[in-house]
């Protein structure tokens, strides 16, 4: 039942200070035509009903706090409670972005220090903390590339992106006005060096890579690729969504990347919040530092921590204010808590988990590409169709009945019936063992009764949903629902 159906006339869920309001006639201030003509039909509920409504809604969600969530490409690691606690200190939450700089020196120090930590972790020169998410970071990066070549007077209009890349990569390149050139993955699941050499030319402004890539594989030719790209004058962009595999092991800066975004909500454990807010800081090499959005948090011998507004070639702002500060606090807290050994260990255990799972599961579902993986592994689900007469989605839906979260499915697009599994370092061996046994159990079931799987799940708050009709004749508000 929606909150609107729970609403009853004249019920209130709030209390406000009992103040005598100034005697002012609204109509004398605001022209009549600009005053709301129809009553707002927001819900009217007591606090009791509101608390119940949302508490009960929450119970219909799967979450990291309630179970194993190995969603590939998303790094669903556990989100330490202490970070939430710290981020909710009033000295962090109750700050106005335009209060005088001298009154938020602590916040500035935090942002500066976070920036420095990210530099060290990634090997980049400096960072902007403005972008609100990974895709936002990508756009920022693409705009930097665009601006860079503009200011050099070059008209490069293409960006090379592997066919395995995440959808945000081409979309971001496009938003920055670039033409997207797709390059193939080779038989080993990494960039086809020959195809790459063929595609790269003086029109190419940048190459967007994820490394390890979205197949969970390390681009072992990475140094070669960046070398070639740089020879052609193109810039290398690093999609940092998969940084969880390599902290303390390899730095994107050392691989030769010029620009990089991070997903603090993945690698640095800020909670996903049902899809956001995240944070997508963008780091650049020295020669690009003046292209970052303003303001930049900086440190000056005299002024201390301060906001720097003048960057010669800044692309301008990509959002209001300074970034998702609340998220930055959590990421900062996480990094300090983990420390250098902790971050390295996190990556190692994430990689160990993924390989362990790969090994155990590949006896029944083959991986898309052979050999070592990094923090995630992609399986080729064709065998499900061929041998079990089900599809990847049926397996995924049936997993829901076992109270574990399915993999990312049908991505990367180049793997048919793909299952992409990322068991982050916060997950234990027995959770992985358990997951593999469940999949085995389900496949046994499939052998006997594939139809059953096609109708899964059975025990979830709702059964399988008709998403097709929902898109065909969309009902996106309760108003539409009742007004038809």
């Amino acid at each position, binding site marked *: 039942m929606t909150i609107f159906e729970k609403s009853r006339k004249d019920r209130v869920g709030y209390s406000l200070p009992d*103040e*005598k309001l*100034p005697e*002012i006639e*609204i109509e004398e*201030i605001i022209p009549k*035509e600009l*005053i709301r003509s129809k009553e707002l039909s*927001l*819900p009217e*509920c007591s606090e009791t009903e509101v608390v119940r*409504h949302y508490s009960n*809604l929450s119970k*219909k*969600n*799967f979450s990291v706090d309630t179970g194993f*969530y190995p969603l590939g490409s998303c790094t669903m690691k556990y989100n*330490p409670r*202490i970070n939430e606690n710290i981020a909710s200190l009033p000295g962090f939450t*109750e700050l*106005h972005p335009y*209060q*005088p700089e001298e009154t*938020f020196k602590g916040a500035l120090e935090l942002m500066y220090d976070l920036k420095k930590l990210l530099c060290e972790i990634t090997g980049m020169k400096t960072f902007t903390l403005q972008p609100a998410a*990974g*895709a936002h970071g*990508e756009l920022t990066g*693409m705009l930097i590339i665009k601006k860079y070549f503009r200011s050099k007077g070059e008209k490069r209009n293409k960006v090379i992106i592997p066919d395995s890349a995440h*959808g945000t990569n*081409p*979309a971001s390149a*496009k938003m920055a*006005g670039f033409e997207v050139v797709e390059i193939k993955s080779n038989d080993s699941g990494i960039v086809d060096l020959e195809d790459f050499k063929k595609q790269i030319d003086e029109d190419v402004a940048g190459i967007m890579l994820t490394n390890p890539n979205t197949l969970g594989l390390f681009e072992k030719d990475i140094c070669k690729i960046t070398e070639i790209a740089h020879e052609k004058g193109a810039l290398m962009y690093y999609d940092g969504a998969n940084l969880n595999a390599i902290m303390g*092991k*390899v*730095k994107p800066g050392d691989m030769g990347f010029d620009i990089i975004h991070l997903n603090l909500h993945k690698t640095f454990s800020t909670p996903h*919040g*049902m*899809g*956001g*807010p*995240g944070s997508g800081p963008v780091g650049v090499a020295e020669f690009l530092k003046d292209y970052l959005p303003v303001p930049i948090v900086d440190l000056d011998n005299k002024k201390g921590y301060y906001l720097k507004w003048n960057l010669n070639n800044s692309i301008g*702002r990509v959002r*209001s*204010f300074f970034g998702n500060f609340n998220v930055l606090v959590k990421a900062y807290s996480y990094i300090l*808590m*983990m420390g250098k*050994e902790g971050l390295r260990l996190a990556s*190692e255990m994430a*990689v*160990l988990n993924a390989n362990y799972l790969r090994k155990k599961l590949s006896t029944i579902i083959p991986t898309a590409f052979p050999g070592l993986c990094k923090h995630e592994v992609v399986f080729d689900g064709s065998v499900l169709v061929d041998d079990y007469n089900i599809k990847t989605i049926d397996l995924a839906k049936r997993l829901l009945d076992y109270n574990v979260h399915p993999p990312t499915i049908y991505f990367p697009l180049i793997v048919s019936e793909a299952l992409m599994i990322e068991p982050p370092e916060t997950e234990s*061996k027995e959770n992985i063992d358990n997951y593999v046994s469940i999949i085995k159990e389900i496949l046994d079931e499939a052998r006997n009764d594939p139809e059953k799987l096609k*109708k899964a799940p059975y025990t979830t*708050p*709702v*059964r*399988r*949903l008709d998403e097709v009709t929902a*898109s065909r004749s969309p009902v996106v508000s309760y*108003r539409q629902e009742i007004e038809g």
Partner: protein
Amino acid sequence: MSDNPYIPHSKEEIQEMLTELGVNSLDELYKDVPSRLDSKLDIPEASDEFSLRRKLKHLSEMNASLEDYAVFRGAGAYKHLIPAAVNSIASRGEFLTAYTPYQAEVSQGTLQMLFEFQTMITELTGMDIANSSMYDGASATAEAALMAARITKKEDVLVASSLHPEYIEVLKTYCFGADLNVIPVKYSAVSGNLDIEDLKEKISDNTATLILGYPNFFGIVEHLYKIKELLPKKTLLTTVVNPVALGLLEAPGKLGADIVVGEGQPLGNPMNLGGPGLGLFATREKYIRKTPGRLIGQTKDLDGKTGYAMILQTREQHIRREKATSNICSNHSFNALLASIYMSLMGKNGIKEIAIRCLKKSHYLYEKLLKIEGISPVFDGPFFHEFVLRINKDKSVEEINEKLLEEKILGPLPLKRFFPNMEDCALFCTTEAVTNDDITFLAGKLEEIL
């Protein structure tokens, strides 16, 4: 092995797993990484949660928390009263630690909440549809421009100079990417409203949209319907709203708006130094397939039971890639949750009451301040809860604010930061969070200082 509370692996388990893999060391798992790339981290050693909290609490105390301040500054981030229930329910792990609702069957909490959020936003804005959130008001504004350009296939984006200056900057950044022209339209120096004459001049065949604040940056309420009449038929009217103001102001949807975007922070979200915000995005039904961001739709399950799912995903990057309506993937769902709980608690009467309090208090303050010698009005257009005053004194606005800060008052925003020609002007804001006493105190204090 690890004494890290978030990593469960014991030495033995690591060994078991390595054995299963037939490798001898963790390093072997990285043998595909060129060895010349090996590196070390030079960051501090691990901390513990207690030392960490002490350190970060200390940092937080180096900031002036506005919790106990009377805040007379808005300009895009607002201090409102937030019921304790909002955070208390929102912080449940099932909300905080779930991801994008890809598996609808185990994400009905998220999905129904967002569906209801969309409904509430359509209700406030008077639009047909709303999406489930964008990053913030500024980026939502920029996305609106891109959508308008896509729909109209035109390249000029008119923007009122009275729109929040940072929104204009962001708009320019996005339009630089999309190769669109951003053309400013003046505001009237008298009323603070959009300069109609200038608008007429700037409008052309190539105008994709006109973007303006409602209320605008100066707090002034624009005559949307009049402006709409002036626009060419194909040109879309984009309004950037403060949702709280819509508790009182006519819904832009009724006044001709084609796209309504805005910053949802005032709805139950703490200021957090300005981020995360909550990007609102609403439009007409006919543009649904052009809309950026996630849309939640109602549907049925196999048993005919009502449920919710992400719909029209073919608009989105993960399917449409470079042809997507936007690159947005993660959005600000959690902030939408805070806003939803807030709107559910405040409800119909509460949101209206808040809007009325904002309006009345700010007008009360306005009148009071104008009685002080040396303070004079700047615009005569109707305003909601922000207004500009000129302070014609030997003291700068900054100096005055410094004095106010000592009294735990965050004074008005000095406008010269954004409008060099408004050197001695300041933008005041009054919400329900300032008490009548705060207002009297501020007025008294200003009189004293000036």
